């Protein structure tokens, strides 16, 4: 097993070393290494097929890496899939309670009540998921990933399909989580979100980690002025490196 749990309070919240994974003959990730501290918001960006979702799957333990290690500080890893993974005919509370029970939590009802409050879903607890707006559905989707109070939360393109107002509320919620000490790694195609909310950016291209630093550092690497067009700087950065 590539994932281990070092002693609590020592080192980064998550530490990844030399992670590689292939789908048959196609290399999806190659030698990816990075780490993130507790409460850090890390954006994983890159072109389509760069390996972002594969990286999150490996970190979540859904796939076993061919090579490399993932070390997570004591605590669980919460994973929120790219698409909504909810039972539309069940209510918000029923969805949360089901997964709380399946996760084997000691007091599932108490955990759900707590999470409904923290996620701002208490008033919607008895509404079927099918009747919720996209923003609330995504909130429920993320809430399920938080059931075990994870040290690291993995969000795969969490803002896809949301309108600007819903996106703003979502990021407010995510920031609060990070403020509470949860390390959040998220993938996104919205480069503006990565620049705005990612304290650190990981840029993947063709399965390789080609950048690990702040948005300002990426501007500098691309030779673009800080505060300029981030998307242009990102494209220029990739082009210079042959991607």
């Amino acid at each position, binding site marked *: 097993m590539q994932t281990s749990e070092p002693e609590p309070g020592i080192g980064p919240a998550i530490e990844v070393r030399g992670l590689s994974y292939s789908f048959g003959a196609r290399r999806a990730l190659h030698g990816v290494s990075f780490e993130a501290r507790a409460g850090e918001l890390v954006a994983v960006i890159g072109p389509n097929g760069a390996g972002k979702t594969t990286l999150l799957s490996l970190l979540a333990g859904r796939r076993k890496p061919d090579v490399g290690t993932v070390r997570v500080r004591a605590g669980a890893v919460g*994973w929120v899939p790219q698409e909504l993974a909810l039972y*539309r005919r069940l209510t918000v509370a029923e969805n949360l309670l089901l997964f709380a029970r*399946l996760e084997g939590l000691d007091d599932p009802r108490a955990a759900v009540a707590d999470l409904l409050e923290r996620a701002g879903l208490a008033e919607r607890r008895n509404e079927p998921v099918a009747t919720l707006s996209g923003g609330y559905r995504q909130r429920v989707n993320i809430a399920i990933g938080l059931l075990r109070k994870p040290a690291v939360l993995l969000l795969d393109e969490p803002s896809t399909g949301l309108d600007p107002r819903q996106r703003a509320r979502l990021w407010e919620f995510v920031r609060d989580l990070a403020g509470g000490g949860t390390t959040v790694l998220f993938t996104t195609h919205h480069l503006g979100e990565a620049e705005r909310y990612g304290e650190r950016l990981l840029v993947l291209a063709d399965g390789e980690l080609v950048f690990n630093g702040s948005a300002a550092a990426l501007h500098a690497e691309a030779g673009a002025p800080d505060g300029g067009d981030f998307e242009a700087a990102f494209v220029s950065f990739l082009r210079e490196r042959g991607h």
Partner: protein
Amino acid sequence: MRWLLLKDLLILRRSPLVLALLVAYPLALGALIGFALSGDEGKPRVAFVNEVPSGQALELGGGEEFGADRARAELCARVECVDADSRGQAEEMVREGEVLGALILPRDLVARLRSLTGLDPEPARVEVLVNEDDPVKAQLVDDRIQALVGEANLALAQRISAQAGEYIELLIDGGTFEVPLVGTEVPILGLGRAARLLERVQQELPAQSPVRDSLERVIEFARMAGENIDFALPLLGAIAEPIAVEKVTVAGAGTALDAFAIAIAAAVTLMFVSVLLVAGSLALEREENTYARLARVVAPGALLAGKLALGLVASLGVTLLLLVALTPFVSVAWERLPLILAALAVGGVAVAAFGAAIGSLAREVRAASLLAFMSALPIAFLSLIPSGVVGPTLFDMARVVRALFPFDPALDAIAAALDPSGGGIAAPLAHLLALALAYSALARLALRRFA
């Protein structure tokens, strides 16, 4: 597994259309089959037209007659008779579907029957009208009326044969003969008495009489004829029924028709409900992207067990509802409830495993439902092909294919559970368990491969 099952049942409860179908389907099917099995003992309606003039009948001897009334009585014992006044009315009834067919006794029927004993015999004919729009119905009425005519022919032949036998005995022993229609009694001497009479005449003749030898030859003929002509009696009986049928059951359990019909209804219900529900439910996990999330916290075996439990609960519920719906119409052997429950439960699990294998291959509910329907329907049809209808090679192939799917053993198990003469239940239950294991393994493999 418990939480997964409760979740699936909750989702089912929140799907009013599916739930309504699961309740309405067995009730409607039960009522339909019940009416079909109990409606006038399942007799087809046949129109009867009598053109034979009133009072005409063929005397069969011994006070028996064969005429329109007897033909009608024989017919109505086998079918539900609907009297029609004319051929035209009967034809209209057949065309409109009011009756399955019509039997017309023509005006000359009795005259032609009488001619059979004369020197210029003309075979008697009856007319049958059928509506060929529906070949199955046409074949059914054909078969019923052919059987009826065959039985009438046999009865006539036996009666005529018996009458001929009485004539032969009269010829041997002598007596009186009542001339038909005329009513006059004619004394018949008989071969035995003729021989004895001639013997007395012979004794009274002079010893040298030239006719003595001739008389001796006549006496000898009368004696031999009297002693040997009764050999014709069993021969006449054999001619009346040259081939007698002796039915011996060498294979098959001899399940009662009602029980078999109920078993088919239950097996078809089991097949469609369980396969569609489980395949659809498993595909729904993929379609709603919940499978990946579940797979992080639940072992694939537990997920499959939850789906099999869903199939089991739905199968038991729906098929028991079907049997309850059938109870007012036909006799359901509720005293055999433990066996019925065992057959439905094991059958339900095997069918659910088959549905799980289908559901694990499909990524969408629509694809899973289509795949489930398209596989369940031909399997059910294949299992209902009787032996002898197709060639032996094709039938053997069909048997092999049927053994690979749970419909056939489920049908056998339910039939055995419903009817004590329906064969053993252990073998089909073992077959179902083996299939349940095999399809569960296949489903697990497919989930791992395609998740």
